[in-house]
């Protein structure tokens, strides 16, 4: 009797496990458009390649002013030497952006009266924007409590690494050396000084910039070792209550990365939307992101992409080559030479990319972003599906059924789109050419012009 009960309990457990196993979703479809960082007016992009405590941080923001006014002050955990700072290629960030951007895929319904067959259409997109901001200096003034830990030039940047004893001294030093410090910066600098962080201060060497003929500022990369896995965002919010977009690409040999002090939420994905969105995908994504952001009370980070970088499905851009990954800061590839033959397949380079989109503002994101890499290797992508209805002649019973079911499907797609974006359902129906065979509610057209 007792053994019988025991068996029953184990069977119950087994059933629970089987029943609650999530369905395996296959990612398939064809890429036609993507929502990359060009959508946003002000989007900073940061690439963090991290394994253990070793970190390579690449920063690029879309600085659009005069380069002589450019200056960058970033708290860093350790004193950096010249060999630890490098100038990255803007194309690498564009490549990462293109590879991981949310994507629109399209399918064509097959002829319900014929055998299975589908066609695809492929349209390649645009590229992303790079950049940065600020100006740099020399002079060490002990009386201000400032120590110039190192000073060097890399590429078109003059860089100074400072340590400070108190924020007044640091502020005075920066002003004396020609930096325009916004009001209120002093209060924000103080906590970083007390945490014994150093300050990475960069400005553009105009002579070098002009002689090299660069059109835009290139990203700055820094390599260091520190248990702190964080990104200071507070300094960027001095005197600004506006929302700012930040795209963080985290490259890790482990798996997905996430923010530990804010909730990380997946962007809505794998939804079917009307085909007209193909021509306004950028507007769709912006509206959808804004709706989700507002729905989450503006205080979450969004996961837009998480994938092993050796492959993609569907690919919005070719996976990065090992050489490109190195340029993006991945430093562990040489340590793990692939011992297995790859039989012509792309070898697993053990780089997992996580693309996080944070729209932050002073009131909703009071604290700097803290990250952690997890062993979660689940793939995720922001993916939106269009299904083109079959328009050919259908004479069979299946064809007639298909025709009858089509208005319902189009209506469902229109409603999904309205829900995701907050767009007017009537407008969507008009654009999607939804001929509803269901009677509309009497009030829907009551106050329509």
């Amino acid at each position: 009797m007792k053994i019988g009960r025991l068996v029953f309990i184990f069977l119950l457990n087994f059933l629970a496990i089987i029943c609650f196993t999530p369905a395996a979703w296959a990612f398939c479809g064809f890429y036609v458009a993507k929502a990359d960082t060009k959508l946003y007016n002000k989007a900073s992009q940061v690439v963090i390649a991290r394994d253990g405590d070793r970190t390579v941080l690449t920063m690029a923001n879309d600085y659009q002013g005069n380069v002589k006014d450019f200056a960058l002050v970033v708290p860093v955990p350790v004193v950096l030497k010249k060999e630890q700072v490098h100038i990255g290629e803007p194309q690498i960030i564009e490549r990462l952006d293109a590879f991981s951007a949310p994507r629109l895929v399209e399918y064509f319904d097959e002829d319900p009266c014929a055998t299975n067959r589908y066609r695809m259409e492929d349209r390649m997109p645009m590229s992303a924007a790079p950049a940065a901001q600020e100006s740099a200096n020399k002079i060490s003034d002990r009386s201000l409590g400032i120590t110039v830990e190192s000073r060097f030039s890399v590429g078109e940047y003059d860089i100074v690494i400072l340590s400070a004893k108190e924020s007044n001294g640091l502020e005075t030093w920066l002003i004396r050396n020609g930096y325009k410090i916004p009001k209120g910066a002093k209060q924000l600098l103080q906590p970083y000084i007390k945490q014994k962080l150093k300050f990475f201060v960069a400005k553009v060497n105009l002579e070098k910039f002009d002689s090299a003929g660069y059109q835009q500022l290139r990203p700055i990369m820094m390599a260091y070792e520190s248990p702190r896995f964080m990104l200071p965002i507070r300094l960027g919010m001095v005197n600004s209550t506006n929302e700012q977009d930040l795209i963080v690409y985290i490259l890790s040999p482990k798996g997905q990365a996430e923010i530990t002090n804010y909730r990380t939420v997946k962007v809505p994905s794998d939804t079917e939307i009307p085909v007209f969105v193909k021509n306004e995908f950028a507007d769709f994504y912006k509206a959808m992101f804004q709706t989700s952001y507002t729905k989450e009370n503006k205080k979450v980070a969004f996961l837009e992409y998480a994938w092993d970088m050796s492959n993609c499905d569907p690919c919005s851009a070719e996976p990065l080559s090992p050489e490109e990954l190195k340029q993006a800061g991945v430093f562990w590839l040489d340590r793990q030479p692939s011992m297995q033959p790859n039989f012509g397949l792309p070898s697993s380079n053990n780089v997992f990319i996580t693309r996080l989109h944070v729209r932050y503002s002073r009131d909703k994101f009071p604290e700097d972003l803290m990250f952690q890499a997890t062993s979660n290797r689940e793939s995720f992508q922001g993916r939106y599906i269009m299904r083109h209805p079959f328009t050919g002649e259908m004479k069979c019973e299946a064809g007639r059924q298909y025709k009858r079911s089509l208005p319902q499907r189009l209506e469902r797609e229109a409603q999904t789109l309205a829900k995701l974006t907050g767009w007017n359902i009537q407008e969507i129906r008009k654009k999607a050419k939804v001929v509803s065979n269901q009677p509309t509610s009497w009030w829907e057209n009551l106050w329509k012009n």
Partner: protein
Amino acid sequence: MDSAIAIHYCDRFHLYSNSVASRMYCSYLGNLARKKDLILLNPLEMHSLRSAIITSLGLSLLLRTGSYTTAIAASLLAIASKFIFKIRNKHFFNPANFGIISVLIFTSDAWVSPGQWGEDWWYVLLFAGTGGTVLKKVGRCDTTVCFLSFYAVLEAIRNFTLGWTWDIFWHRLTSGSLLLFALFMLTDPRSIPDARVGRLIWAGCIAGLTFILRNQFYLSTSVFWALFILSPLTMFLDYLWHSTRFSWERSLDRSQDNSSHEILDRKAIIFEKI
């Protein structure tokens, strides 16, 4: 968001069910070993499931893994720790905490997401916790109160010293994961010190170690490690300060005081049957 949480719960249901099953199985083995011929599902044994349910909730709400074997391992190890690591018939590791730390150390596919509960639920949790304290339904809540107060004081001192604005302090304290830990993991009445003085010292030490691990060693899972490291301290504190040990049976009887006669009658009938 509600649907997301519902999915989240469904996805972790196996953890819950496995822990409960593990508890029942271990209880069954324990009974066999003691040669007590108790029926596994008899109402007298059901009260011990409360302990298993707390463990299951702790695991389901805080541990994340993509593999079922790891989930099963966590729940088995959690319950097994109650039977293995005990002195004077008292286990000193919090079972859920032991399960979490074990799989974090020994497997490569488990993790804890401190940010997963955001800050939106803090008032619900605090309300539930305070209500539970007042009604004495949630174990020994003096531990929670002491832990949260001491941790808050330490964070406040740090915030003040560094010169951060107070919204950072508030943001840190309203973390859903921290409150879940304080309300559902620290309150396990069986593995914590028996005497109030011991419990307060113990909770204070955990708060202190959590603070150090988080702010000096930048460990995002600091609370779990702090509890794990300091769990054996329970035995020492019990040695210094004696008190009545918590018992689920007594707790059950107390909470059902109004219907105590009915329960006694039922017990009598059951014993007669046995």
